[in-house]
Structures are given as C-alpha cells and as structure tokens.
C-alpha cells in the first residue's frame, strides 16, 4: 500500500491542475481506476441506486397523496406478517450462505440457495394469496388510493424479487457448475446475489412499515 | 473572411430587427405595466451581453484566423479573469432577479379591496360567476353539476343563490376595480389568459387557483386558453369587456342570478330552499 494512501476528496480531485508538470508526474502513476471495487459490485450498486430512487419517488407521492380526506387505510391480513417473516428468514439464510461461500463450503452454499429460492417462491405465492383475499373482501385497486398504492408497491417489489430470482438462477448455475467450480467467480456472484437479497428485504420492510404505520 | 462578416451581420441584423420590425406587444391594459418594465430590463441586459459575445466571436475569428507560421497562445487558465467574469455575471443576475422578485411579490400579494369573481373553464368554453349582492361567492362541488346547475353550486350554502351566473363567452368587468379571478376547471387543465392584462394562471380540476389585476383601459379584449386542453384548445376563446361604471351596471342588471335560473327551469324544490335562505 502506498504512502500516498490518503483518501482523495472530490474537492482535491477537482482542483488538480492537469497541465502542471508536478501534477503530471503524479498523474502518470495513476492506474486509471477511481473506486477500489469490482465492476460487478459497482454495477450492482448502480442498479440499487436507480431502484432506490424509483421507490423513494413513489414514497414521496404516497405521502403527498395520503393527506387527502378520501384516503382510507386497508385492512392488513395476518398473512402479510407471515410473508414478511418468510422474506426475513430467506435473508438470514443468505447471510449464512455468504459466510459458507467465503469459507468455500459449497455444499452448504447449495443447500442454502435452494432453501432461499423456495422461500422466495413461498413469499410470492403468499403475496398473491393476500391479493386474492383482499380482492375477495372487495378492496379493488381503483377503490381507494390506499388500495392502489398497496397493489402497486407489492407488485413492484414482487417484480424486483422476480428479477432477483433470475440472478439467483445464474448464481445456482455458477455454483452447480459441472466442471470445476471457479471459486472466485462463484463467491463473487453469491456475494452480489446476497447484497441484492438484503436490499429487497430492506425495501419490503420500508414499504410494509409505511403502509402499516402511516 | 466571410465568416466574421456573416456573424457581424447576424448580430446587427438581430438588433435591426428589434428596432424596425412592427412586431411588439400590444399596450398593457392592466396594472401590470411593471411586468413590461422587468421584461425590458431583462431585454437590455441580455441584449448587451449577446451583442458583446457575438462581436467578440466575430473579432476573434477574423483576427486569429489560421496562419501556419503562427502558434496559438498556451494559457490553461487565468484565475483573475475568471473571477472577474464570475462576479460580473453574478451582479447581472442579481440586477435581473431583484426587480423580478419585487414585482412577483406584488403579483402574489392580493390587495384587500379586490372584487372576487370566478372563471370556469371546460372543454371547450368559459363560464363566469359574480358573487351577487352579498359579495361572497357560494361554494361549489363537482358532484352538484347538472343541466340546471352548471357551476355545481352547493344549494345548502346561503351564499349560492344570489350568485350571478354568466354562461357564455363574454365577461364584463369594471374599469379600475381591482379584480381577483378564482379559476376552476371541470375537466382538464386550462389557462385564463388575456394578452393585454399580461397575467395568466392555469386552471386545475379539483382545486381553485387565482390571480389578481386591475383593468386600466376600457375596451374589448380577447380571452385565450393558454394551457393545452385537447382537440379544440385553439378555439377556446372568449371576450372580456372593460366598462365604465354606467355601462357595467347596465350589463350587470341584465344578468340572472342562480335563483332566477332555477325559476326559469321551474325547479320548484330548489326555489323553496332558495327562498328560505333569503
């Protein structure tokens, strides 16, 4: 590691004089990489940022809309708490999978991933059951803005989870590789999938909390 | 050689167009003459900058045209010059913004002695409502709207029945009477705009927007819808006539109140309600 290891603030960066010979000597040694992270991880952060902004904007409109008089909260089926618990459990299992993957215990990783996938399917199924139940009770999407937001939020979160399941499938493929597992690749993918999983749990907790306690 | 000359012609042509073309705004007919003044101020400040930049470009293109025996200057930056330019620009911006915000403050501060009327927009036409003798506009609800109650007046509001309803595209207003127009829409966005009054504001279904002005010139002015509102947007026109007191009163006497329109439609139930409120 370098003795020039100080974090370079964005302000310092932007005040460099690239034409200055002293600065040029420094710059010649630059590796050309700005952030010490793999491109995969950066790409994932990019997607997480976009998706966070996306949900934040929805939440802003939600809080704008709910102050109007016609807003009527929906009942909250117990099933939703069960689903939340399922998602939470899958995320917790994923933590142990990540630990196992770092220790190269891929048998454990495989078992864990299968359980996570199963739980995710149960969650989606559970959400659909909630929809069915609410529709049965007469809470249609156009009935009230609160209903509309409920269906919208659950649907968007569900779509994100389906996206996550696609990535989960890719992770499975890397871990189940018939040839030798390329350990580094598999670990990287497991880690990325894990981060996304926890992100989805976080999103759900925020949305669920918002709809329950507002 | 031709490039700097053409740039020069573009700059001079723009200035000439401004001074000699016949196209300019019509004379202001409301108290918002100071909006015109802020436009003129902006016009002169920006105009000077535009001409200066253009002439400078023309000069550089002519003076520093390519010559293979000459090399350009090597000057990465000049902090002093850049600071001076920043400060000058900031001063220019302040010079434009300050008067702008002062006038805006006047525009959004409604005086106490305004006469409030309502302008209603719909696809595609205008309706107008005056407060009647009690001087207060009755409240409305879109659910009340039917053939006999186009404005959707609340019949349980005692202020409703003396409101004067004008279904048609012609509104009369009184000279020198500060006026607050409350704007309402029944379907989509519209915008109540009279070019000579300079002011405008969108009409939003589900809420009431407003602005105020004082007409200072008599005459007939055209109302335009200034917010795109569908296929017949361009045909959503009307007329506002600014009258002297006598003409205005004469016109006002010919208009019908809500109660009178109900009578005309022989809606006896509601007339009873109305009479009870008298």
């Amino acid at each position, binding site marked *: 590691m*370098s003795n*020039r*290891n*100080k*974090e370079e603030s964005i302000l310092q*960066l*932007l005040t*460099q004089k*690239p034409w200055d010979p002293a600065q040029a*000597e420094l710059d010649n*040694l630059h*590796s050309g*990489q700005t952030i010490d992270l793999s*491109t995969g991880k950066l*790409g994932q952060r*990019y997607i997480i*940022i*976009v998706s966070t902004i996306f949900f934040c*904007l929805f939440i802003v409109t939600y809080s704008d809309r709910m102050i109007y008089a016609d807003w009527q909260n929906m009942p909250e089926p117990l099933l939703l708490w069960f689903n939340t618990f399922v998602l939470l459990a899958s995320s917790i299992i994923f933590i142990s999978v990540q630990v196992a993957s770092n220790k190269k215990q891929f048998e454990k990783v495989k078992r864990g991933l299968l359980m996570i996938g199963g739980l995710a399917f149960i969650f989606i199924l559970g959400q659909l059951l909630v929809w069915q139940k609410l529709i049965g009770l007469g809470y249609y999407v156009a009935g009230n803005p609160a209903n509309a937001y409920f269906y919208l939020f659950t649907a968007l979160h569900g779509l994100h989870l389906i996206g996550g399941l696609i990535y989960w499938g890719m992770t499975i493929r890397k871990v189940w590789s018939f040839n030798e597992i390329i350990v580094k690749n598999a670990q990287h993918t497991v880690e990325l999938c894990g981060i996304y999983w926890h992100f989805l749990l976080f999103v759900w907790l925020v949305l669920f909390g918002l709809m329950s306690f507002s | 050689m031709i490039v700097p000359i*053409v740039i020069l012609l*573009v700059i001079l042509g*723009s200035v000439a167009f401004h001074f000699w073309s*016949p196209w300019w*705004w*019509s004379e202001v007919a409301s108290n918002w003459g100071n909006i015109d003044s802020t436009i003129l101020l*902006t016009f002169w400040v920006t105009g000077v*900058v535009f001409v200066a930049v*253009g002439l*400078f470009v023309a000069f*550089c293109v002519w003076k*520093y045209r*390519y010559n293979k025996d*000459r*090399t*350009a*200057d090597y000057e*990465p930056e000049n902090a002093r010059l*850049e600071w001076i*330019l920043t400060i000058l620009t*900031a001063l220019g911006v302040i010079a*434009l913004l300050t008067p702008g915000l002062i006038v805006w403050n006047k*525009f*959004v501060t409604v005086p106490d002695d305004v006469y409030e009327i309502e302008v209603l927009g*719909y696809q*595609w036409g205008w309706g107008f409502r005056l407060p009647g003798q009690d001087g207060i506009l009755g409240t409305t609800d879109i659910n009340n709207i039917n053939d006999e109650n186009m404005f959707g007046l609340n019949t349980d509001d005692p202020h409703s029945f003396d409101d004067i309803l004008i279904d048609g595209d012609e509104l009369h207003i009184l000279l020198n009477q500060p006026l607050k127009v409350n704007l309402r829409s029944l*379907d*989509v*966005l519209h915008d109540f*705009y009279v*070019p000579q009054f300079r002011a405008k*504001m969108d009409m939003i*279904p*589900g*809420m009431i*927007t407003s602005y105020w002005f004082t007409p200072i010139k008599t005459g007939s002015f055209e109302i*335009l819808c*200034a917010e*795109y509102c*569908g*296929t017949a947007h361009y045909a959503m026109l009307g007329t506002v006539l600014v009258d002297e007191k006598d003409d205005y009163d004469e016109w006002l006497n010919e208009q019908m109140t809500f109660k009178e329109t109900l009578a005309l439609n022989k809606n006896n139930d509601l007339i009873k309600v109305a009479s009870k409120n008298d």
Partner: protein
Amino acid sequence: MAANGYEDVVKGDDAVPALEVQPQELYHAKSFWTRYIFCQDAKVIAVQYSLTAIAIGLVGLVSSWLIRMQIAYPGVIPMDASAYYQLVTMHGMIMVIYLLTALFLGGFGNYLIPLMVGARDMVFPYVNMLSYWVFLLAVLILVASYFVPGGPTGAGWTLYPPQAITSGTPGSGLGIILMIVSLAVFVVGFTMGGLNYVITTLQARTRGMTLMRLPLTVWGIFVATVLALFAFPALLVAGIMMLLDNILGTSFFMPAILEAGLGEQMAYDGGSPILFQHLFWFFGHPEVYIVALPAFGIVSDLISVHARKNIFGYRMMVWAIVIIGFLSFIVWAHHMYVAGMNPWFGFFFATTTLIIAIPTALKVYNWVLTLWRGNIQLTVPMLFAIGFLITFTNGGLTGLFLGNVIVDVPLSDTYFVVAHFHMVMGIAPVLVVYGAIYHWFPLITGRFLNNRLGKIHFWITFLGSYSIYFPMHYLGFMGVTRRYFEVFEGEAFPVSIVGINQFITIAALVTGFAQLVFFYNLIVSVKHGDKAEKNPWKACSLEWQTTEMPPGHGNFEKELPIVHRWAYDFSVPGANEDYIPQNISPSEVSNAQAEKT
C-alpha cells in the same frame, strides 16, 4: 492499490511502471450476425444507436414541416386539429428523447468513451448490446402507436393529465398507452447503457488517465448519464402511475372531473394533476441538461482542436458541468410558475434558476476566450462550433427571461418559450451533433465528409434556424399562444403575425431540406469520400491515437496507451508541432522545453 487510485511507485524520470495488461476477455465476433447485428463492440453499438435515432429523427423532422405548413398556410396540407396535435406531440417526444438523448449518449457516448479513456470496450459489453436492442424495441413501440385506432397520442410531449388520458385529446386510447410503454422501455434500455458509460468512465481508464485529464467530451457525457440515473426514474414513476389511472381506473393524478364537452362525471376522485407535473419536470429539467452537457463537452473539444489552443479554464469547465448537473435538480418547478402551485415556490425556483445561469455563462466565456489568441482553422466542425456559440448564447440569454418568475407570467405558454427551447436545446445541440459528425467521421469510416457540401449544409442550417427562431421570440412578446391549430384574427393579435409565420415556415422548410444535403453527403462519403490520414485534425485525445484508423476490434493494438498529459496540449511553447498527443511521454517530445511551460 491506494484508495485514490495512485500506485505506490518510486518517483523517477520515467517512472511509469510496466503496464500490467489485465487479461480482459474480449468479445470476438464470429459471423456477420454477431459482427454487425447482435454485436457487443461499443463502436458498432454506437453506429446502431445513431442510425436508429436519426431514422426516427427524420419522422420528427417531417412532422415539423407539416406543423409549420399548418401554422402559416392552413389548408394547403389537409389536416384536422387532432392530426396537428398528434404531430406536435410526436415531434417533441421524438426529438427530445428518441433522437437527442439516444444520439448523444447511445451514439457518441458509446463510440467515444472507451476510445477516449483508453479502454478496449465498455465494461459490460453484453448489457451494452441489450441496451441497444431494448432502445430499438422502444422505438418500434413508438412507431406502432401511429398504426393503432385513434393514432398516436396528441397530449403534448409533457403528457399532462387529466387531458392525456381523457377523450377530448386525440390518441387517448391505445396511443397514450403505447407512448408510456415505449418511454418505460426506453428508460430500462437507457439504464443499461448508462451503467456502462458511468462505470467505464470511472473504472476502466488506462494508466495515467486521471479524471482531470479526461477530455471534456467524456466529462459531459459522464455527468449527463449520472443525471439520467437520477432523473429517468421520475419519468418511469409518473408513467406507471398514469398508466394505472388509465387502465385500472386508479386516481393517482386524476381528480373528479367531467367527460370532455360537459359530459358525464368520470369515475375518478381526489388525484392531483400537479403531482404529475412535479414528477415530470423533476425528470424533464435534468433531461434538458442530459442533452446539453454532452453538447457542451463535445463543443469544447471541437473548439480547442480546431483553434489549435487548449480549452481555456479547463478546471472551470469541469466545475461548471458538475455544478450545472447538481443545480439542474433544484430548478424543475420553473416550468410550473403558472401551473397553479403555491406562489411562494416562485421565489425559490426563480433564484435557483438564475443562479444556474452563472456557470452556464462561464462556459460561454471560456469558449470564446479559447478562440482569443488561438489559431483558428475554419473547418466545417469549427463552423458548426461557432454556429453553436451564437445560437446557444441567444438561447441561454432568453432563458433569463423565462427563469425570472414574473417575466415568465406573460411569456409562458407562448411562442417565446417555443423559440427559447428550440434555440437552446434543439438547434444548439443539433449544431454540435453535426460538428461532431464532421469531426469524427474520418475516425469512424477513414474518410472525410465532403467539405463543400459541408459548408453549404452549415450555412443554410445555421442561418436558416436562426431566421426561424429569432423572429419567433417576437410572436411570444405579442402573447401568441403556442399549441394553437389555428390563430383566429381577433382582437388579440394584429394580422401581421401571418406574415411572420409565413416567413418562419419558409425558413423552416429550406433549413429542413438542407438536411438532405447532409444525408446525401453522409451516404456518398462512406464509400467515396477523400481518404483521411491518421489523426487528420492533429488532435491530442486518445481516440485518434489508435494504431489502425478506423480503430479495430479492441480499440488499441496489443498494448493500451499510457497517458502522460492532459487532452489539451496544443501549441505548447517550444514544441515542434502544435500538438502533443496524450500518449506521448516527455522523453518522446523532441524538445524537452515543451514540458516546462
């Protein structure tokens, strides 16, 4: 490696460590299909993006001719008000999103970023390819909306509810649905591309290429992409909610209203149309800069190269790009001064909007100061750059009218607005696009575009567009409202506006047809243009320093270039030539004096 990207190496004369060539798995095209169609090479994707954008842009161009004919010579081309509003809507939407955004980021971004930062390709080539195909799908959905019953939406490019989805507006059936779906697909495709532009710029630069050594083109595209990352989700959110209002009958944006023409009451209640406007402009204003910032960057490089002088105040230029990018998120409501929002917002947004004029003005000063004491070659790219300077200065200054809230009150929704935004985000960026095409065409094809045709194209385009939009401001001063199918001769306006409209229409048609000269030039020159030698403009930046021209697969030959200087070492005192490319080390510069300036 250190956190700041500098490696720990002992300083010395030529202390550049041997390049660790990272074994990057490069994608290799095996057949015609993977080489030209489903290709992962950013250069090919760039051309695909550009051609698609230009093709749909032609639809937008022809729409504008029809619109102008209707305004000045009603009846010559038979159309009803619905058709007129559909043309206006599609013209706006196509030009802003499908032409300019796609061309600057998908086209120039893809071609120039890897080459300029010294990378072999984008970091996620497969995602990059998908990005193009998703964009093409968005374009096809847009085109499909022309062929559904009721035609494309005529809601105006801002798609304001309630009218966007009610029956008084043309195309309120399938047209608006396809429009929103197309936009959503565009956003998805664009996010995939943006992922590449941002991460390639941040992570995949070659050795020695610090961020502050990047050409301003890359800075402009980079910051524009970051803006898009924050802005486009707002469009997506607004689109999804309006789609639900339309299809499922929710009331996110829809208040209780009547059907068009005082009809039945519709089944909506309580929604807020202004909320849509906030979301739309939270996207829409940064969108202006998503188009403008790449243009700013590119034009800086054009001026610098063809004036043989370093860009004046490079650091200020970078700061201005970053500051403008940041400020563009807190000015959106200046589009809504008369939209019925709380009037007190006017004070805040007028102030932020006028503040944004300061960095923008500084950019203009620095461009013209780059010309000062330069050695200006009046090549076609330089002509377009000068045309941009005049046009942009004009359009930027009229922004000071509209940003100042009280001045906006009489001028908003008039032709003044139309003239302003066409000058500033229509003509100005398009002039840069042309300049850039004339500039980089030799790099892409190995041949020059025809110079004489280029000059004809420039003069008609520049003078023609100026004659269209300069007089149009005066219609705005007179208060002539925009989006009018027909302006009746009433009390509002004198008859003389007919004359000015006819003049504008003729100018527009002439300018429009002059673009055919350009397309002819483009097509003919690909095969028959004059052959260009390597680095024909004697530029410093890396894209011209490839061993092959046009750059081959993987951009650079065996070794990536190592960067020793910033991208603007033009006319360095003491050097033999008037330029020193970025990859020339100090020891290679014949005169050592060159380094000591």
